[in-house]
C-alpha cells in the first residue's frame, strides 16, 4: 500500500516548496533535489496507476480468504502477524508489494538490490 503522502499530495508540497524556495539559500541545491525527487515519485505513481493497488488487493484476498478495502485487508494482515497467525505466503506477498513500492519510490535502490542478489 502506497505510503502517504502520495501522488497529488506529494506534487502539492513539492510545488509549494518550490514557490517558497530561496534560490540563494545555502541549502538551495538540497531543496531542488527534494522537489525533483517528489515529482519523480508522483510521475512514477501516475504511470503505474491503480495496478499495484489492485494486485495487492487480489493477493491479500487470496492470502486472507476475506474481503474488504485495501486498507482493511492490510489491517487484518497486521493483526494476524502480531497475533502470530500470519498465513503461509505472507513473506512472499510482502516482498512482492515491497518491490512494487520501491519501483515507484526508489527504482535505483531496487535495481541495486537486484544486481547484488
Amino acid at each position: 500500500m502506497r505510503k502517504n503522502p502520495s501522488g497529488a499530495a506529494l506534487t502539492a508540497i513539492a510545488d509549494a516548496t518550490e514557490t517558497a524556495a530561496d534560490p540563494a539559500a545555502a541549502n538551495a541545491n538540497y531543496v531542488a533535489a527534494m522537489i525533483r525527487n517528489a515529482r519523480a515519485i508522483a510521475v512514477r505513481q501516475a504511470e503505474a496507476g491503480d495496478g499495484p493497488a489492485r494486485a495487492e488487493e487480489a493477493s491479500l484476498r487470496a492470502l486472507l480468504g476475506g474481503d474488504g478495502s485495501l486498507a482493511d485487508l492490510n489491517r487484518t494482515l497486521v493483526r494476524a502477524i502480531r497475533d502470530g497467525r500470519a498465513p503461509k505466503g505472507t513473506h512472499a506477498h510482502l516482498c512482492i508489494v515491497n518491490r512494487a513500492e520501491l519501483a515507484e519510490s526508489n527504482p535505483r535502490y531496487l535495481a541495486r538490490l537486484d544486481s547484488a542478489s
Partner: protein
Amino acid sequence: MAGNLTLDQTTRLSDWLAAEAGAAVTILATERLSGGAIQENHRLEIEVAGGPWPGRHDLVLRRDAASAVATSHSRAEEFALLKAAHKAGVIVPTPCVLCEDATVLGGPFFLMHRISGEARGGRLVKAAPNAALVRELGANLARIHSITPPRSDLEFLGPPPADPARAAVAQYRAYLDALPDPHPAVEWGLAWLADHAPAPGPVALCHRDYRTGNLMIDDGKLSATLDWEFAGWSDPLEDIGWFHAKCWRFGRWQEEAGGLGPRNAFVAGYADSSGRNIDPTAALYWEVMAHVRWAVIALQQAWRHVSGEEASLELALTAHVVPELEAEILAMTGDAA
C-alpha cells in the same frame, strides 16, 4: 525563540557570561549554524578579559529550535549527558556552562567548545575506507557504554529497562498503532524481533543515534560525538546495530561500519576499549531492530506532514524511504517470522 540572536539577546548574553566568568566578556561574533530541526546551534566567539577563563573562545551555543519535540532531552539534560560522556573519555565537544534562566535568551541553553570537522554522511563515505577511524569509533562507543546505572546525575533517564529488546518492540508497536495506515512489512519485522529477542543482559548508557551523520570527523579522525538527544539506558548492542545498519551506510553498502570502513575494525576497537567481544548474531538482531526503528520514526515524521501539523517536503519524502527499510527488514528476517 528560534532564529538569529537579536541585539538585546546578545547584550543579555554578554552580561550573563560576564557574571559566570567573573570578568568582562565581549561577544566578537555570532552566527546561526545550519542544520538542527530540533535544536538550534549558534557559533559564538567571545573574549574574556580575565578571571579563570581569560582569552578568546570559539564556542557553540545550543538551544531549542521552534520545532523542538517533547521526546528529545532538554538542554539541561543534554548538558548533563555531555558532561558525563566527557568525563568518561568520550570524544565530545567540551561542555562549558548551562543557563536555565529564561530571561537571558527566552529558554535554556548551554555553551560548548566549537569543534571543526565534517559530519555529513554523504560526504564522509566518499573518502577512502578508513579502518583506523572505524576502530576509533568502536573504542569511542565502548567508552559511552562504560557509563552504567545507577547515576544520580543522569536520573532524568529514568529506570533502566529490564528487557530492552522487548520494551522496544512494545514501544514501536504502540507507535504504529497511533498511525492511521497499516504497515504489515514493519509489523513483520516486529514479530520477528519479538520471536528472536535475546535474553536481557547488562544495560549501559546508549547514545541511540550513534551513526555516520552524527559523528564529526576531522582529517580522518573522530573530533566529536554529536546529537545526544535520544540517549538512554539500553542494551549496548542497540548502538552497535544502529551504527552498522545498512540504512546508515549512505549507499556505500560494502563498508559495513557506517559506510566508512570494515566491520572487523570497529569490533576490534570496541573490544580493545571495553574488553568485551561483540556477538555477531546478537548484533544482527539489533540491525533488524535499527531498520524497524528508523521505519517507525520515518512514518511518524511523514505523519507530521500528512496530519497538517507541519507542512514539509522533507517530512513528506521521509515516507518514501520506508520501502527501502522494509526491503532490508524482509531480507534479513526471511520467511520465518
